[in-house]
């Protein structure tokens, strides 16, 4: 039994599919990279796995001890968060929200968990700083720490490095790799070929439908890879 298993899944909005025929599974310890061009339906697939968007058809099964909401999510950047008055600590703490249940306030367990994850992400010194004054890389580490509070099992990251400079991007990939080595299962979305791809154990290539799913090591020999790289190449020519 896998953490997440998608069976003939179609995802989309208001009854219309944007990506269909998805068949793949994510097992404990995997690092799945989802690639595909812009508008391919990657974010939509993520949101469907996270119960934010309704399934059009097919099914998603959660298993192997993973509860359906036990997922740490790092959303694709949104403008609304940019100007929000909140400290690093407040945001990381909110990753514990679902553990509160009917309790109104956080307890020692939640505070310790937030502290631990801030230290892991090397942002503990920034804990009282305002989120909106941080650099792009720092912001992503704050949101990652929040995601880590929400789940110790599975992380879902939607284009986490877009807009970051190469050095910060490389550091961020390192961080994800380390988390994966420590046993965290990772699903990461991106729209281009990048060095982070080397860390993945599995690749899912989506463009309206599923073009490839399998081990990362065999991806380079696939037809899908040629399509993706040819897009990259023509982009590079311009």
């Amino acid at each position, binding site marked *: 039994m896998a953490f997440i298993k998608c069976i003939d899944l179609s995802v989309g909005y*208001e009854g219309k599919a944007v990506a269909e025929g998805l068949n793949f599974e994510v097992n404990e310890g995997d690092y799945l990279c989802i690639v595909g061009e812009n508008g391919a339906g990657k974010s939509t697939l993520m*949101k469907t796995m*996270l*119960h*934010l968007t309704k399934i059009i058809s097919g099914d998603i099964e959660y298993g192997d001890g993973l509860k*359906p*909401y036990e*997922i*740490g*999510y790092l*959303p694709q950047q949104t403008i*609304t*968060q940019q*100007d*929000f*008055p*909140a*400290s690093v600590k*407040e*945001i990381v*703490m*909110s*990753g514990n*929200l*679902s553990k*509160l249940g009917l309790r*109104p*306030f*956080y307890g020692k367990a939640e505070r310790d968990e937030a502290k631990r994850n801030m230290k892991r992400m090397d942002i503990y010194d920034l804990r*009282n700083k*305002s989120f*909106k*004054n941080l650099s792009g890389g720092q912001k992503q580490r704050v949101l990652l720490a*929040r995601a880590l509070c*929400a*789940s110790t099992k599975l992380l*879902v990251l939607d284009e986490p490095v877009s807009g970051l400079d190469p050095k910060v991007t490389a550091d961020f990939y390192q961080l994800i790799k380390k988390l994966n080595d420590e046993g965290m299962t990772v699903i990461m979305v991106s729209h281009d070929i990048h060095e982070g791809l080397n860390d993945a154990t599995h690749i899912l290539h989506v463009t309206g439908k599923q073009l490839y799913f399998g081990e990362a090591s065999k991806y380079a020999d696939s037809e899908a890879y040629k399509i993706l790289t040819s897009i990259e190449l023509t982009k590079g020519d311009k």
Partner: protein
Amino acid sequence: MLHQLYEYLQYPFVRYAVIVGVLIALCSSLLGVTLVLKRYSFIGDGLSHVAFGALAIASIMKVTSTTLITMPITVIAAILLLKGGQSAKLKGDAAIAMISVASLAIGYMLMNVFSASANVSGDVCSTLFGSTSILTLKQSEVMICFILSIVVITVFVIFYNKIFGVTFDENFARATGVRAGAYNLLIAVIIAVIIVLGMNLVGSLLISALIIFPALSAMRLMRTFKSVTITSAIISVVCALLGIIISILYSTPTGSTIVCADMAVFLVCYVIDRVRTA
């Protein structure tokens, strides 16, 4: 002047009025940040017009306390507006504009046709801009306002962390299993209650100012959610107190005086922020 104020404060009903005014100001500031950041201001605006219509109905029905009529109507409208704003098919802001204008028209119509009062335009005016003096509030209204204010503050404190989560990042909260829909509903209902309460103090046209100004001021000064919330509450209470005292001493309309104080504080905060970041 202070002597005059002191004399006023000897009367219990003046003291109650001041206490209720301060409590209402406190309540109305609490959800300001959420309202601004969630882009819910439009709901606040729409609701205040609905509350005007509801108050018109209540006043021709001659109930002991108008709140008993305006409260349920406004709360139901809040729920409908929230649902409407979420559905993609119905254009949220157009629907709200329609409801707002319709409520105003119906409200004014009802007050004109059915009112037994000799001074209809005076009644309309005090509904829109608040009682000319907070001292004219009825004893029963003061009691209801007092109880509801306490309820709103308690609910806000209990759900503070959840309101933060749902305001900062609704999708994240939802993805971790937080029932964001239910909390959005709770927020909308609290806003409705606050609007009905605030109408007693500043009237339906000015209530949005009471909710939004302190939050905007606090956001200029503070950088964390907690400090913004607390600062906004302090600003709101101080402005209300100031407004009420000035309005008693100089017999100015209470609502406008409070809102003017809020506006002045906002200007000061704006300048401080500008100078600091320059």
